[in-house]
């Protein structure tokens, strides 16, 4: 699905580059860049314990009334990441998935390039936001037993059960070695 979002020509909003907001449909077919408020970098409200109403007003003021974007040339992006066989092997082991063929690898390379444009966003002095919940209170539970004792229900979803145990394959099944994989001859590919 995401591949359809990849623009034919990379587009990037640059301050003062003169690409104004464009009305109309911004669907996947016409998607061309990253939306950005007209007044430069958005400042994320970081104050804690302020009144909710105030915060809401502040946040509303930062939301642009109309979408904006700017064209981005390929040369503005960071250097294209080379997807090495070692990297593929590493990712396949981590994810326990097989990229299967050259097309899959190219898709990955494009996905990385797609994400690369985020490097161009000016985040100087902006603290990273982990979660939209980060200025909320973390609820603390009293140390009481309120759950459990439902082995039967839990095990009813298991494909295989021995007594009251789930049954799993022994240890982790590693992916077969590169040379042993039939579907995709890594040594033959040209990247």
């Amino acid at each position: 699905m995401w591949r359809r979002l990849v623009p034919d020509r990379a587009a990037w909003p640059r301050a003062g580059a003169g690409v104004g907001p464009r009305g109309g449909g911004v669907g996947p077919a016409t998607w061309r860049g990253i939306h950005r408020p007209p007044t430069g970098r958005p400042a994320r409200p970081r104050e804690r314990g302020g009144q909710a109403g105030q915060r809401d007003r502040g946040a509303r003021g930062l939301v642009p009334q109309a979408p904006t974007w700017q064209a981005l040339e390929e040369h503005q992006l960071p250097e294209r990441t080379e997807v090495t066989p070692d990297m593929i092997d590493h990712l396949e082991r981590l994810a326990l998935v097989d990229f299967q063929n050259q097309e899959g690898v190219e898709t990955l390379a494009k996905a990385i390039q797609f994400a690369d444009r985020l490097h161009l966003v000016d985040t100087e002095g902006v603290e990273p936001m982990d979660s939209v919940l980060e200025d909320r209170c973390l609820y603390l539970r009293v140390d009481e037993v309120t759950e459990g004792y439902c082995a039967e229900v839990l095990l009813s979803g298991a494909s295989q059960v021995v007594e009251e145990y789930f049954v799993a394959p022994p240890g982790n099944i590693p992916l077969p070695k590169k040379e042993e994989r039939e579907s995709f001859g890594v040594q033959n590919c040209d990247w």
Partner: protein
Amino acid sequence: GERSCTDMISQMAFFSVTKFYDYRLDICYLSSVYCSNCIYRHHFTVKNCFSSSKSSWVGVVGLEVHAQICSNSKLFSGSLVQFSAPPNSLVSFLDASLPGTLPVLNKRCVEGAVMTGLALNCTINKRSLFDRKHYFYADLPAGYQITQQRCPVAVNGMLTYNLCTGKNRNQTTLKSVRIKQIQLEQDSGKSLHDDARFQTLIDLNRAGVGLIEIVMEPDMTCGEEAAAAVRELQLILQQLGTCRGNMAEGQLRVDANISVHQPGEPYGVRAEVKNINSARFLARAIDYEIQRQIEVLENGEIILNETRAFDYKSGRTIPMRDKEGKQDYRFMPEPNLPPLIIYDNKTLPSNVNHQQVVNIDQIREQMPELPSVKRTRLVEKYNILTEHSITLMSEDGLMEFFETVAENTLANPRKVISWIINEFLGFLKQNNLTVRQSPFKPLALSELLDLLEKGVVSSSAAKQVFTEMCKKEGKSASQIVKEKELGLLQDQAKLEQICQSIIENHPKEVSEIHKGNWKVLNKLIGQVQKATHRRAAPNLVKAILEKKLS
């Protein structure tokens, strides 16, 4: 070719070395290069080829200790925490990672971590964060563990411990190890490997139990230091009540990061020895691993950055085949948990529900006396040796036992100590009992020591009484003395009679004494004691014999 790689690496001594040493990410390497001969990446220590082969290697040991928090329910769910329950009975939907479940943090676990942090002289982070650490294993159904990697609950602490030194291990040296951080995290489930049927049985009862991970800096140099540090940590946790500390039940698990280097040189490549479940094995595993690494390096080979397991039967460490290659845990912020905010008296908000507040100052006030403070108090109050205070603290309940005995007897505390260490502990070890399981109550020992102190029984008879008391429950020391006629023989006439017969039966010794060799008198005293089953009052016997022979 292993050999050719080694040769290549030794030729690379001129390469400049950048040092990476990151404990949290489980990565430590001094440098890495691609070896053109065998395409594998080698982590190696650059060694000066021109240095003499005679070298003085030093072990570098850092520990990661996982302590199960002693709480009723799990870290993020309300299921019961208990050892050896029926499989999968203590599992909530969250523990089984069913979709749609969310973690809810247990306040008691936070308090436990803060108290542990305070006891280890840490700085408590008023704002700490949770992260996800990813890895695939069947007993980790979510595919990740919630932990605190970036900003843990406590940092920069110090653990002080006593190391037994000297020939008879009767001297102690005070040592310390820096605590890098203390983090809250989830335990995993348990895997039971059934090799015969080629399957693994999964029990999730332990999945989600709260753990305190204590990460120490590599400040130790040998197994004994590490074991002593772990024992002290165990005592502290037990004293605080934040962890029961039973290593056999896995409530306290230790991973050791071990490397060797030559003083002044950068640290060597480290190997990690995982899941050691006793202090004794920890010491053995570390010492074996240090020796192994020295031998490998002396042979001109390289140390692999790998995970090893300790085989207690052979006393060796062996590579673990389970995890291959470098781990990449793909840490990311836990999106379902906002930051954990901890308060102190100064920052305490006035309008917050007190059930939602963890207050550092309040926890500090509730903290029980720490083992080190208790030891100092014992030494000062009873005028006993530091070594003895360490022994008293090393067994759960022994210190209380000692104090009760000492408070209820006329005997000197030092005498009480020697009885407790030599007789009482010996009895417990022989019968494989803990102090609390002992049928022998402290007041019974007080009574026995009183009898000894008052001169009613000799010290050897007292030991007999002790043995009898261990056998028969419920009988007091004085009852046994009466029944077995173990009381001190102080009857002058009777003793004179016994001495007389001993003199008559040992003419050779008597003539020696008459020649002026009074040392032989001890032999006669011994004979009298033998005849009286060691019940004769020693001073009386000596006086009678001297009178009769002079």
